[in-house]
Every structure is written in C-alpha cells, then in structure tokens.
C-alpha cells in the first residue's frame, strides 16, 4: 500500500505485517495454535531469520518427533543429494508446519508452492519461478526480471535456467563467505503442498506426471523435491516407471499427543489439564482432528470456568468434582453438535446476566434452536415451504392434496388421499435413497398459490375480529414472487437442476432439510405435516 503525501490512510486498513504483530496481544484463549503462521515462515526463508535448535523444533511440534527425525535423515546433511520425498497423512496432522519448521532449523534455501493457493498451472509455475528469482537476488546475483510462462514446456526450460543460476549464485556466495555467516549449502529445495488437489485440475493427466517426475526431467543433483499430500502414495502411481518418491507417513495424533498440543500456551495449566481429562476422551471417539476439537473445546472451557471466581486457584478434588458436574449436561449436547454458532437469543441472555441455572440455560438453548435465527418475509416463507412440499411429494399426489379451493377439508378428498397414499409404499423408500426430487417452476408456483389461498382463508376466518390489515397483495402472484424466487436461489435454499430436454423448462431443487422447514412452518403457523407425504 503506497503512502502518498497528503492522502491519509483510513484507520481501518492494515497491512499484513502490522496485523501479525498485533496477534501476540490477543488473549490466550484466542491464540492460534502455532506461534508462527505460515506467512511469517515463508518470509523468513528469504530473509535470514534466526534459526531454531533441534530441541525447540521437536518441542514446538508435540507428537511429531519421529516424523521430523525421519525427514531430517532422509534430507541428509548439508550438500547431500536426495531422492524426492512424499509426506502424506490425514488433514491437520501437522505436515506443512513440520516441513517448514524443519527447514527453518536446517537454514537451507527452499521454494514453497501450495497447490491450494496456486489453483491453476500458470499460477503455480509463476510462483515457483518468482521465488527462485528472490533467492537469486538474496545470493547476490542481479536478476534479469520476472519471467512468465504458460505452458509446461516453457516452465521446464525456465525452471532449469533459474535453478542453475540459483545454484551457481549460492556456490559463489558460499565461497566468498567468512566464518561468521552460516553456510546455507549449495542445494535448493522445492516444496509442493496439497498435491492431491492436482488430480482435480483440468489438465491433471499432464500436470500430475510432470510434477511427480520433475527431478527426473531436470536431472539437477542440487535440487531436492518434497511433496506434501493428504492422499496416500497409491493415488499417484504412474505406470511409466519413474522413480517414485519416498513416502513418509504422518499418523493422526494419539490421545497423549492431543493432550500435549492443547496444553501448550495455556495460562492456567492445572485448570486446563483437569478440563482436558474430562473432555478429551469422549470427543476423541468422535473425531481426532485438532481443528474440530479446538472449536468444540473453546466454548466448553468457558462454561467450565464459569463457577470459578478466581481462575488462578489450585484445584483440589472436590472443586474438580463440582466443575465436572457443572459441565456434564453441556458435554452431552456438545458432542452432538458439529459446531456451536452463538445465536441471537443466547447473546441476549449473556447480556442479561450470568445468573441462570443450568437447567434453565438448557431449556432456553433448546427453544432458541427451535426458532429461526434470521428474518424472512411472509411470501418468501410460503415460497420456501411450497418448494419443500414440491420436493418431498411425488407429483401425482398433488391432485389429491390440493384443489382449486385449497386444503383437504373435504372428507371425500381425504378418503381419496388415503387410498392413493397406500398404493405408493415404495415411494418413501425411494425418496429416502434418491433424495428430494426436482420440480418445474410451474408446479412450484401452483403449489404456492394453493397454500397461500388456504392461508388467506384461514387468516380471514381466525382474525377477522382483529384490526390488523392483511396484505393481500403479498399473496397474489406478482413479479415480486419471482424476484424472491431468485433471491432464494442466491441464498442457496433452492438450486437449479438440469432442465428437461423435451420441455425445456428449468427445474429446481430444494436444498433445505426437514428441520429448517419445520422451523419456518412453525413461525407462520402453517400445518406442514398435513401436506407432506409420509409412509
């Protein structure tokens, strides 16, 4: 961001480096898991950051000691050529951070390219070439400017030229070095992250073999390549017999490792370790991923510490028992949540004060989750419900469910409905398997008109002694409804399905689940269950 004379920067804008320096002032609970983010590490490899010792390396990454040692011995001492490595393991097992920290410890020049941020070949190639250019500059040689490339063939040529230049520059720099500066070696390392995403790219049949055989194609002994992937090596077998990379496996964290990870950087270790002893084992049965566990533990820890007035107390057994009893009901409900989004109702409660008993809190929370958290207009709610009905019911049932007067109040109609329902026993099974069907626009609007006319008549019957005026205009089929249809599509409540090739009309699918439909129906007192086909 260029600072121009006389134009003040608005106070809201921050550069990336300033926001990183602020992160150390965040409270302990919100501190990110690792003390350095990736971006800092990447900046570090270009500038000379102080390197860390082996002990710091292994202690900052608990549970990854054997893997780090394996990587270190496969990379080997300074200036030793290496075969390509493939580090694989599940997501959030610390692969990327281990490699980056290892290179910080080794203090050797490397180039990092992630296939998630470089999402197409052109960006990947340009990123690698640009970083090599930076290395050349650091090693003292002037450069001839940025090179751009589009095709793999250009990339290989430019890469070979860049690598040879960097290696020569490094060698010359090392020759000129005095004893006070550290020798960074003659080798340069390429790290490709998230290699499994390459298989999903458009040109994957050419890109994947190209990248995996890079060392063989370039034949530069000073180049070391490391691939990081979530998929196992058998996803990358090429049938053209090249040197496959050596696999290094990163298993998921065990219970003790997770304990060690969560205990890092805690302000009150005793309190947190008693919390973990309660919480870790049940959650470990559900998921082992650190990111999901930390999201679940954070609100639970706040609830755990609620009764404690002084957080620096040393806990004794009775206290621990009390805290556990306090936490117990929340534990069960938290195990069944995927993530806890604080709803508006719970924010209100927090503002009103923390003097609620846990029973009351639980019932409030249940009620809050039974209501809709956001606001929709009446016609949008009716439209959504008609989409839900259209998706769930088979089309042939429409004639029996709806008629021009709306509703199934007629007893003869009810009998007809029952007989037609009995005939369709397999329908529910199919719907369960295949999912909600798609429906054309005309059917959606027809159902919408039917249920809104019913609602109109119901509202008129119930409320005609009241004064509040009913907006009849909302329920007529105006262009507003069609606008709201597109709004629903944008919000992903409806989505466009493939259109029928014969008729050419577009078909839609409803993507909300039954829970949400029930909530919407409840908010407008609509008898949804009487319209749905159930076995």
């Amino acid at each position: 961001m260029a600072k121009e004379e006389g134009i003040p920067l608005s106070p809201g804008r921050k550069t990336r480096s300033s926001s990183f320096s602020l992160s150390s002032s965040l409270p302990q609970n919100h501190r990110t898991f690792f003390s350095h983010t990736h971006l800092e590490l990447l900046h570090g490899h270009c500038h000379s950051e102080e390197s860390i010792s082996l002990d710091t390396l292994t202690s900052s990454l608990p549970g990854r000691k054997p893997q780090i040692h394996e990587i270190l011995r496969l990379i080997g001492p300074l200036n030793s050529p290496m075969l390509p490595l493939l580090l694989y393991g599940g997501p959030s097992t610390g692969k990327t951070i281990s490699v980056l920290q290892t290179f910080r410890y080794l203090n050797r020049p490397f180039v990092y390219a992630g296939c998630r941020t470089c999402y197409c070949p052109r960006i990947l190639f340009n990123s690698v070439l640009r970083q090599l250019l930076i290395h050349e500059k650091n090693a003292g040689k002037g450069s001839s400017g940025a090179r751009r490339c589009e095709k793999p063939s250009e990339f290989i040529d430019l890469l070979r030229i860049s690598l040879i230049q960097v290696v020569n520059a490094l060698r010359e720099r090392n020759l000129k070095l005095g004893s006070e500066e550290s020798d960074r070696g003659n080798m340069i390392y390429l790290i490709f992250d998230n290699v499994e995403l390459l298989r999903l790219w458009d040109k994957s049949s050419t890109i994947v073999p190209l990248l995996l055989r890079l060392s063989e194609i370039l034949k530069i002994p000073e180049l070391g390549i490391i691939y990081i992937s979530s998929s196992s090596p058998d996803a990358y077998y090429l049938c053209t017999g090249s040197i496959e990379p050596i696999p290094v496996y990163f298993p998921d964290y065990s219970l003790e490792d997770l304990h060690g990870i969560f205990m890092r950087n805690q302000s009150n270790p005793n309190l947190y370790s008693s919390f973990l002893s309660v919480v870790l084992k049940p959650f470990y049965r559900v998921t082992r991923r650190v990111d999901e566990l930390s999201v679940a533990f954070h609100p639970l820890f706040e609830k755990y510490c609620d009764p404690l007035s002084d957080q620096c107390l040393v806990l004794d057994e009775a206290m621990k028992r009390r805290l556990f009893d306090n936490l117990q009901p929340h534990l069960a409900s938290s195990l069944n949540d995927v993530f806890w989004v604080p709803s508006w109702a719970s924010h209100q409660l927090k503002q009103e004060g923390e003097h609620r008993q846990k029973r009351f809190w639980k019932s409030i929370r249940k009620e809050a989750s039974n209501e809709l958290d956001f606001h929709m207009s009446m016609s949008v709610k009716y439209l959504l419900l008609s989409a839900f009905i259209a998706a769930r019911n088979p089309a042939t049932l429409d004639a029996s469910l709806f008629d021009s007067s709306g509703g199934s109040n007629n007893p003869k109609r009810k009998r007809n409905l029952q007989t037609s329902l009995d005939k369709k026993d397999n329908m529910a099974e199919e719907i369960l398997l295949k999912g909600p069907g798609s429906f054309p626009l005309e059917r959606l609007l027809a159902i919408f008109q039917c249920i809104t006319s019913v609602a109109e008549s119901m509202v008129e019957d119930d409320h005609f002694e009241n004064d509040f005026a009913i907006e009849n205009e909302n329920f007529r089929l105006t262009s507003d409804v069609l606008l709201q249809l597109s709004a629903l599509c944008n919000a992903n409540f409806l989505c466009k399905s493939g259109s029928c090739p014969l008729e050419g009309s577009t078909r839609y699918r409803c993507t909300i689940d039954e829970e949400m439909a029930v909530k919407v129906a409840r908010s407008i007192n609509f008898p949804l269950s009487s319209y749905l086909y159930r076995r």
Partner: protein
Amino acid sequence: MIIFVLEEFDLFTQGKQRLLYSLLDAMQTLTSHSVVIGISCRMDADQLLEKRVRSRFSHKKLLFTPLTTDDMQRLLEHLLYLPTDSSLPSDYLKEFNSNINNILSDNKFKEILDLLLAADNSISNIQRFLYQAISSMHFQTELLTLDDLKSAFSYHQRQPMLDKLQDASILELYILVCMNRLESREQDSYTFNSVMKEYKAIQDAYKTSDNYSKSVCQRAFEHLIERELISFANNRLRNLSVEYRPVRLLLSSQELYQSLKSNASCPAILQRLLNYETYR
C-alpha cells in the same frame, strides 16, 4: 549428425501424430544425417502409429529386459561400494567395502532382497530401498549394517490403507462397519441415509454409548470421503448433497477385519457386528 530422442513415445502417438509424421518425413527428404530414437514403456508403441507414419518407421526395436540375478548383484555392488579413487581415507574405504561385502553375501540379506524384488523388481524400487537404508546409517559407526537394511525394508512395506484405518476415530469405524454390512447384504447402491438407518438400528439394538446425531455422523462420513476410504459410486450426480449420493467402500472386508482386530481402542461390538448378520 542430429539425434532426436523422444521420451514417452506413446504420448506422441495420441491425437493426430503431426509431429511424428513431419519429423519422420523430414528425415527421408532431407539430405542431412539425423536419427529419431523413441523411448517408451509400452511394448506395442509402434502399433499405435498411423499407417503413414509407420511406413516411414524403420521397424527397429530394442527391447530392454528386466534385470537378471547376476545383473542385480552387479548393480548392488555398483551402488553400494565406495569407489576406490575417492577422497576419503583409504582404511575407512577398505573397512566400508569389506562390510558391504559381508552384508551382500549374508543369507538374511538375500531373503530381504528376494521379498523386495518379488513385489517389484525395477531399479527404482531397489534405489529407493537402498536410499532409505543409507540415510539411516548410524553416524557413529559410519558403516552400513544389516539392521539398517531391515528397518528400511519395514519402512518400505507400509500399507497405507491399514494405516488410514488405524487413524480413523471410533465413530468412523462404526460407519465403515455399517457400510460393510450393507454391502454384504448385496445392496447395489446405498447412500448416507441408508447407512444412517443401519447405524440407528444398531444403536437401538445394542444401546452403546456411541449414539451420535446425524450431523456429527455426516461430518465423520465426509472425513472418510476425504481420506479416500470410501468414495462416491459415480460422478454424475454431483449436484445432490452428500446424503443422497450413492457411495461404496474402497476397502475389502478382510482389511477392515484385520484393522479392527489390531486396533486396541476399538469396542468389541464392532468386530462382532462385522461377523454376524443379525443384531444378536
């Protein structure tokens, strides 16, 4: 004399083969001396050529056979012995090379080598194995030992599928067992909803402590898809949500059974469910 070397020759035969045609054509018409050499892994690479290209081809094929045992021995010696004219001290050289000699003639090494080559006797396999052994050489003794080779062999023989199964959480194992039961009943295609039905039925029958809600099970299901232990049966219905797409297991019942047995924290009920069809 210009020599054109085309690697992965079979990839040039895709499409219209314009490059091959023009190259071979130019060789016949021009008076300069040039040779085109194609290298390919496919034995039938010359059958892939078009008629007009094949007529310009000289039909000379050189076949490279895999290594015989003698060649293997020579390769190992070439890779492992330190060259006598290197800059290292000569007594260290002698010690290292005699050590290698002892190892190569050891029977246990021959057994390991046979096991290694039985699966894959390509040179790249041997290179990778030896690289792992050399990298684990102990710095104090500075000699290659048989233990290094043995540990390299065990690293080499990892089974990624079983490793992934060891990493799965208990809920994910439940889902895999449910899917296995559905497959053993020969249901052609089943979706996440059918798996949930089976899971709920098991929970109702056995009342275990592992009864979780649908969203949590769906998250575990998506983890399994990420890890490639299960996958979608066809890619056509990509617009449907995860619950309605047909899925299938990517591992065999044997692998599942083996990993459940070796998993210490796995509840005993899962193994029983694998074996028995009914909810007993």
